[in-house]
């Protein structure tokens, strides 16, 4: 069914996975550098010039490209299959894919030529080749167009089905894309107004403080753009995969609306230590960030309860016995469940990061990569691997190459990530070791750091192996000679309570209006203040790497 969408989704996933392969390969190299094994000189002749060029590749391809391609592909697929309605404008969705690919190539070339070694955050006045910025902008624009294709399809479905409640998966997918459209206005403004004209030499100076503020306007909600597709799977699919039901579907819908409302007006929690942002606004965003934990805590309860229903239906008994009864032999489930556990640790660390003054202790230390490898590097990435274990066979119409390899993959990721993130967290917390730094040659690095660096490096190598297992499986599946005997269906969880959710959980206008108002209140005065004191004084620096 929906052959065209299958093909499109396959392409999005394929490009995303190639990106992650290259970007991910940099990870273990970074870990080796930290324990004194500098492989970069040896890699000069394949064009890798420095640790920092490698780190740029790692950040851009993993955090920006892999995620965005997988997400747009997966949510397009999920929307169509959830609505059981084909795309209204498939050409638009294909255009989205092509725009994203063109953007990716435009950004990748300067990165590989070492003319954009400015990391994935591209803080000005470090100045990369203009193609880097234009390419990244096109990736975002392409993802918008993909969202429009989804919205038009959803709109048509609504017209065709008056009075019918939107299926959960389609609603959640569309809310995620809508949030992304609003959230990316920050980065779009930063690029189009400040950075691109300046990198082209049309204007002399840039305002780094204002640029950072626009960047983090998008930079926090981007993490929810990564996470919400994983939540779509955890709420909408995993309960079915474990033979359970979605414990409270109305609350699941509410959670998505709350993420639309609260993901954006919290970006200043990344700027607690910025010089020219008033402390009062930092506190406002700190409080809003705390409220953002509520939908996550709702999620924890709801998903665990849904899995418990499955575990008990499969014969599990007792307080914890249902956990053993879950289908641990199913790699799609196992990967996602381990992703949830790692994500829970990441969430707890996130509470620390968000805590205004505690942030002083860990800001820009190795604690931060320790934190986000649990979230985007595991909660999201390992969940996407879990999704790929059913989705890629479905798209390729071939059975998964090996269940066993997939299970090993999930568990090795879990083990490797525990080691790596534990080491990184402690380095940051106890020793303040800076992130984004060649710790292996830093003159101030202390021998006390060694055991932790070694622990983290060991974890990084296990993760590298785990990554290889994933790619073995994907290639083995796609190039297999077997074909599926029966078609795989997208898992769709049924709600425990069959009564439809109330209408206000299926109504867009009030939520969108409230979102815009909250953004204006939380960002408006600060932006007016920064823009009326515009400081376009910084020239670009493009020869520091």
């Amino acid at each position: 069914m929906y052959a065209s969408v299958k093909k499109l989704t396959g392409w999005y996933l394929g490009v995303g996975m190639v990106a992650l392969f290259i970007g991910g390969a940099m990870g273990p190299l970074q870990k080796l550098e930290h324990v004194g094994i500098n492989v970069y000189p040896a890699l000069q002749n394949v064009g890798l010039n420095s640790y920092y060029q490698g780190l740029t590749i790692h950040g851009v391809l993993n955090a920006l490209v892999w995620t965005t391609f997988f997400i747009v592909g997966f949510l397009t697929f999920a929307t169509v299959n959830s609505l059981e309605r084909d795309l209204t404008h498939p050409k638009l969705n294909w255009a989205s894919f092509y725009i994203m690919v063109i953007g990716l190539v435009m950004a990748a070339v300067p990165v590989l030529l070492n003319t954009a070694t400015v990391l994935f955050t591209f803080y000005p006045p470090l100045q990369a080749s203009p193609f880097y910025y234009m390419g990244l902008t096109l990736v975002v624009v392409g993802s918008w167009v993909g969202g429009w294709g989804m919205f038009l399809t959803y709109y048509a479905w609504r017209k065709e089905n008056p009075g019918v409640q939107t299926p959960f998966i389609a609603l959640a997918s569309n809310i995620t894309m809508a949030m992304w459209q609003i959230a990316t206005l920050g980065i779009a403004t930063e690029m189009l107004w400040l950075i691109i004209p300046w990198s082209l030499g049309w204007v002399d100076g840039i305002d780094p403080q204002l640029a950072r503020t626009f960047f983090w306007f998008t930079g926090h909600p981007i993490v929810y753009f990564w996470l919400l597709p994983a939540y779509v799977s955890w709420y909408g699919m995993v309960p079915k995969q474990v033979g359970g039901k979605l414990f409270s579907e109305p609350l699941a819908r509410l959670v998505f609306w709350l993420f639309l409302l609260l993901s954006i007006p919290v970006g200043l929690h990344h700027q607690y230590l910025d010089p020219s942002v008033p402390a009062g606004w930092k506190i406002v965003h700190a409080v809003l960030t705390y409220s953002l934990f509520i939908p996550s805590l709702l999620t924890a309860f709801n998903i665990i309860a849904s899995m418990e229903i499955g575990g008990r239906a499969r014969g599990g008994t007792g307080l914890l016995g249902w956990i053993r009864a879950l289908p641990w032999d199913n790699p799609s489930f196992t990967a996602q469940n381990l992703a949830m556990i790692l994500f829970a640790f990441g969430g707890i660390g996130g509470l620390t990061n968000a805590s205004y003054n505690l942030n002083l202790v860990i800001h820009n230390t190795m604690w931060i990569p320790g934190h986000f490898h649990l979230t985007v590097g595991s909660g999201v990435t390992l969940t996407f691997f879990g999704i790929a274990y059913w989705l890629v066979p479905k798209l390729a119409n071939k059975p998964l190459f090996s269940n066993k390899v997939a299970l090993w993959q999930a568990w090795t990721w879990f083990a490797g990530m525990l080691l790596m993130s534990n080491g990184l967290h402690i380095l940051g917390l106890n020793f303040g070791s800076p992130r984004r730094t060649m710790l292996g040659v830093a003159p101030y690095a202390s021998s006390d750091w060694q055991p932790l660096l070694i622990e983290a490096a060991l974890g990084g190598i296990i993760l590298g192996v785990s990554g290889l297992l994933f790619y073995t499986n994907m290639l083995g599946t796609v190039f297999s000679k077997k074909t599926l005997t029966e078609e795989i269906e997208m898992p769709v969880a049924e709600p425990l309570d069959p009564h439809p959710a109330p209408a206000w959980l299926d109504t867009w206008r009030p939520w969108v209006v409230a979102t815009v108002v909250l953004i204006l209140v939380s960002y408006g005065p600060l932006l007016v203040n920064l823009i009326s004191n515009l400081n376009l004084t910084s020239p670009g620096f493009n020869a520091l790497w």
Partner: protein
Amino acid sequence: MIHVDPRERNFIIGTTILLLIFGTAVLVSSFAFGFQVPAPVERLDPKLVATPGQSPWGDPVEERVRELAPNKYEVYILAQAWNFQPREIRVPVGSTVTFMVTSKDVQHGFRLDGTNVNMMVLPGEVAKLTATFDEAGTYNFVCHEYCGVGHHTMYGQLIVEP
């Protein structure tokens, strides 16, 4: 309204209370113990900031550690790729030191070991925080924002003398 299972309702109430407690603790401690985060000071032109006579960071390095009163110091640190100037600061034990840091080129970071002094250093902006040093010793301050290929060599030391 939505039907919510009583156990789930209790969970929601419980965790919300927990968050309220955490949040209050964070805010109260900020005020009660005087934790500061950087706040706006002034906006400068980074092209002129190191020019003598144009700004305190244009003064000779040796004059940029200023004793305002006994045991009360102000330090004007200029960050640039890839060093801090001054890169060595000496103060007597018991001193309260206010750090005023700006950059003349790209973004940098400034984190002083053993204290809560941690800030982003941006060209055109002044990052300012204060700390008191009750123990003699050598404290590193390290650049923690990527600033080019020499980033990992960028640090300095505060020496608190007995």
